[in-house]
């Protein structure tokens, strides 16, 4: 899978180092499908999460990220508090219709490739808040990859959801460069 220097130099135009890297990657994928798997492997163990915490599930989020349950074992322990540096959106808590435009905007500011987890039953389906103010699930606002039910979910469930997302990332195809 290693692309040697000569093939790079032979290509028509090299504008920037980023172009060179992309060309190298595309070529590597064409030569060997395992490259995709290697990239996916790298992605799934270095998830940078953006915690969009709106409600009490935030406490369980903190618990899952604290040393007792230690989510860093799965390579997702670094929260980024700007969406531009994150590739995983944790939607932790109830999403109201007043909150929805903010959530949409945060999601649009994140760079590809990106994933979203609905943490808790409110973010998944609206929970028991079937009323005038609450969106019936964050998937009405943005696409969701993994739903973690529970009110609130236990940290084991959170870790299980994260592992499910990692398995999903590992199987992804054709999402190398955007």
């Amino acid at each position, binding site marked *: 899978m290693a692309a040697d220097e000569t093939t790079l130099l032979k290509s028509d135009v090299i504008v920037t180092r980023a172009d060179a890297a992309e060309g190298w990657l595309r070529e590597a994928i064409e030569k060997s499908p395992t490259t995709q798997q290697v990239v996916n492997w790298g992605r799934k163990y270095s998830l940078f999460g953006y915690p969009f915490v709106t409600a009490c599930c935030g406490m369980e989020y903190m618990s899952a990220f604290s040393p007792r349950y230690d989510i860093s074992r799965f390579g997702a322990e670094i929260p980024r508090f700007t969406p531009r540096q994150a590739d995983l959106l944790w939607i932790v808590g109830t999403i109201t219709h*007043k909150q929805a435009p903010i959530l949409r905007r945060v999601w649009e500011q994140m760079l590809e490739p990106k994933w979203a987890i609905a943490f808790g039953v409110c973010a998944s389906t609206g929970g028991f808040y079937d009323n005038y103010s609450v969106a019936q699930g964050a998937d009405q*606002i943005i696409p969701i990859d993994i739903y973690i039910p529970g009110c609130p979910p236990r940290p084991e469930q959170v870790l299980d959801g994260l592992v499910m997302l990692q398995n999903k990332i590992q199987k992804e195809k054709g999402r190398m460069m955007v």
Partner: protein
Amino acid sequence: MAKVVLERLRRKFGDAIVETSSELGDDCAVVAREKLGEVAEFLRDDRELAFDMPIDCTALDWFQKREVRFDVVWHLYSMTKKHRLRLKVRVAEDDPTVPSLTPVWRGMNWHERETWDMYGIRFTGHPDLKRILLYEEFVGHPLRKDYPIDRRQPLIPLRKVKDVPTAKNPPKSRLNQP
């Protein structure tokens, strides 16, 4: 202790106090709408009563159960005398207007805004009567009993989500399958 407050109110204002009750240690006085401002100032300034702390303002909707539809309720507390009082004013549906008590107790400001937001009670003399919890685009007042229970007013168009379990289309449980 408890009877002192109501007794003093009745002696001072007579007919302006429409009704009083004292159940389970909770004193309640129903006041005529025109006299509310005077009563409130008396409650605050009188040395025996000294209600110096606004606790809450809310409303009750007796939709189709009573001739006069709304009760507007204020809760008061005296930190020096350690007693409480509940003030009520009855207002009809076609004119849901009461004098604001924000000029008397500044702490009533947000409580009265919430009551406007949820019940549509107009407080005359309030310095900044606008919605406090819901968004300005919201139409109607959701805690009124005639607000449709399933009406949603999203700010942004919602995504179509497949396979949303409803009462008519219940989710398939893995437990029930043979």
